[in-house]
């Protein structure tokens, strides 16, 4: 049988040996002779040379992020989205069994069912979309937790509340930053369908850009493929939300059997304002002097309010990416390099937790 020992045990043994040697030296009459001879042999041994490893030593590298770090980051964004949709659609948060893991587990502040979803008086399309999205987001949480297994982080503290005028919740803080409401108002995403859509809009584009940005960090192709699948789902969700916001902003055209629904232009301007606020937070700002939308995060209309911009792509038709730090700028509602705030008042668990320095 072979000994497996920890370093500490080794050091202990080395110390023991040293004492034994000293005891032996004291005891041995021929010590002087032995030492003299050993000096000769030590010179032959040349034992001090070439102890450096083959390649040139490099400074200590910072431990690289592994796939678990990246997917744990994604998992926590999914906790946020899933809790928001679950409360809005079903009136309850995620099952407690889906919230455990490493790190510090936190509670959810805020969240309630949107009245139209509860009583069925609202737009059936929005209600069905919301139900689908909610189920997808909950499934994302379950999938990521399953893939991460024991490495999965716990849900950190999440704030998805409107709060009060004096003590605004994260949604009110976001809406104030975007100019949707004044400093004396609150924004409650659960108040009605329109507010729910704007609340969903805050998250969905972030999710898409976050998964695209994280794709370069995922090394294992199996999980990269799974992440691509989640990205696609998030992109469908974002497209739905943007489309409905745009449609409602323009107003529903009259048909022979129905009355025209009044347009809610504030949905378009609101969504565009949220987009600009996200740009401001993550460091990509619209060029106001030229009027050209040079930013990555685009609203749902072009230069003309009637021109749609459902899919926020660049000149090549490619959707943009956000780094993990930029994503955290938005969910922390802070353009500076911080490690908590906004929707995550106690920060994130895991190894990705600091936002980028844009302010």
């Amino acid at each position: 049988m072979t000994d497996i020992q920890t370093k500490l045990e080794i050091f202990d043994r080395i110390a023991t040996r040293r004492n034994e040697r000293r005891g032996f030296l004291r005891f041995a009459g021929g010590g002087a002779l032995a030492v003299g001879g050993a000096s000769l042999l030590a010179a032959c041994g040349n034992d001090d040379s070439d102890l450096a490893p083959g390649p040139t030593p490099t400074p200590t590298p910072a431990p690289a992020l592994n796939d678990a770090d990246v997917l744990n980051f994604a998992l926590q964004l999914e906790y946020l989205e899933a809790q928001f949709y679950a409360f809005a659609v079903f009136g309850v948060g995620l099952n407690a069994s889906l919230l455990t893991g490493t790190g510090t587990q936190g509670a959810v502040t805020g969240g309630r069912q949107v009245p139209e979803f509860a009583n069925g008086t609202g737009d059936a399309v929005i209600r069905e979309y919301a139900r689908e999205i909610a189920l997808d987001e909950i499934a994302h949480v379950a999938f990521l937790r399953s893939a991460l297994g024991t490495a999965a982080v716990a849900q950190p503290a999440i704030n998805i509340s409107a709060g009060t005028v004096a003590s605004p919740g994260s949604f009110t803080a976001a809406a104030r930053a975007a100019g949707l409401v004044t400093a004396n108002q609150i924004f409650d995403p659960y108040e009605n369908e329109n507010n729910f859509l704007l609340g969903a809009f805050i998250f969905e584009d972030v999710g898409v850009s976050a998964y695209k940005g994280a794709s370069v960090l995922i090394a294992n192709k199996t999980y990269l493929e799974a992440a691509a699948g989640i990205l696609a789902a998030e992109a469908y969700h974002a497209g739905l939300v943007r489309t409905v916001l745009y449609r409602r902003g323009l107003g529903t055209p009259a048909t022979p059997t129905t009355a025209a629904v009044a347009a809610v232009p504030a949905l378009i301007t609101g969504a565009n304002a949220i987009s600009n606020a996200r740009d401001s937070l993550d460091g990509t700002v619209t060029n106001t002097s030229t009027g050209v939308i040079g930013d990555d995060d685009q609203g749902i209309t072009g230069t003309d309010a009637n021109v749609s911009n459902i899919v926020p792509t660049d000149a090549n038709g490619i959707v943009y990416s956000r780094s993990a730090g930029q994503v955290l700028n938005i969910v922390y509602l802070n353009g500076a390099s911080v490690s908590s705030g906004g929707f995550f008042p106690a920060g994130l668990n895991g190894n990705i937790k600091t936002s980028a320095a844009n302010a």
Partner: protein
Amino acid sequence: MKTSHLLSCAGLALSCAFAMPAAAQETTEERPFSGIYIGAAGGYDVQGNDVGSSIQFDRNLDGTFGDQVSTIGGANAFSPGFCNGSARTAVPTFGCRNDDDGWAYYGRVGMDAQRGNIVVGVVGEFGKSEITDSVAAFSSTPASYTMARKIDWEASVRGRAGYAVNTTLFYGTFGAGYAKIDRLFFTTNTANAFAASGKRQQWGFLGGGGIEQKLTKNISIGMEYMFHQYKDDDFRVRTTAGPAISGSPILVANNPFVLAPNTTGTDFKRSDEKFRWHSLRATAAFRF
């Protein structure tokens, strides 16, 4: 008769030992190195420098070493390299500790026969040496992995042949050794699990030479050089997914030691398959 002559000589020597200086007494002895003796040997053992030694890997567990351990991205997971000592930290920047040289102590029993100036004999020896021979590898994790070997005990039976000038014997010796080798493995990798295996008793040989001087009829001292070499190629460390990662499919799927297609693990072995060292020791013997 020869025997009675010897006995009378012995009796004379014994009776004279109290009255005469030892040196004067011994120079008169006819065959000072004949007979049985017991003795002790002790000294300091040093090792040569195992330049270029490393740890080799068997990634697919087919028994053939020399495989590259790769990260999920295909890069060499052991790109930081190796060193022929024990790793101080997880990174090579801080270098390695030298192999440990150390004291050695042995007991011995032997028998010599002398004809004229020629002495031949056989000696058996048992003892231990405090040397440690290590080799380390550094992975890009970053983590270090050190494999070490020590002597638990060593036994040998050697032939001895020499040339005696009065009470001084110059000799050479060569024989077979059998040793129990302790294996140590330590690592800064806390994610994987490591299990060591391998036969610890190994055969080898010893060779050297020395000089022995009789001080009295029964007492001799000497100094001796010895080279020891043991074949030590059985030590294996099997690296598997440890408890820290086995519960996480993602961590397992990204761990270089258990990457698909072989998710069982990876074997380590030392590239230097011989445990070699030199000893210089003082000897003392009581001759019957």
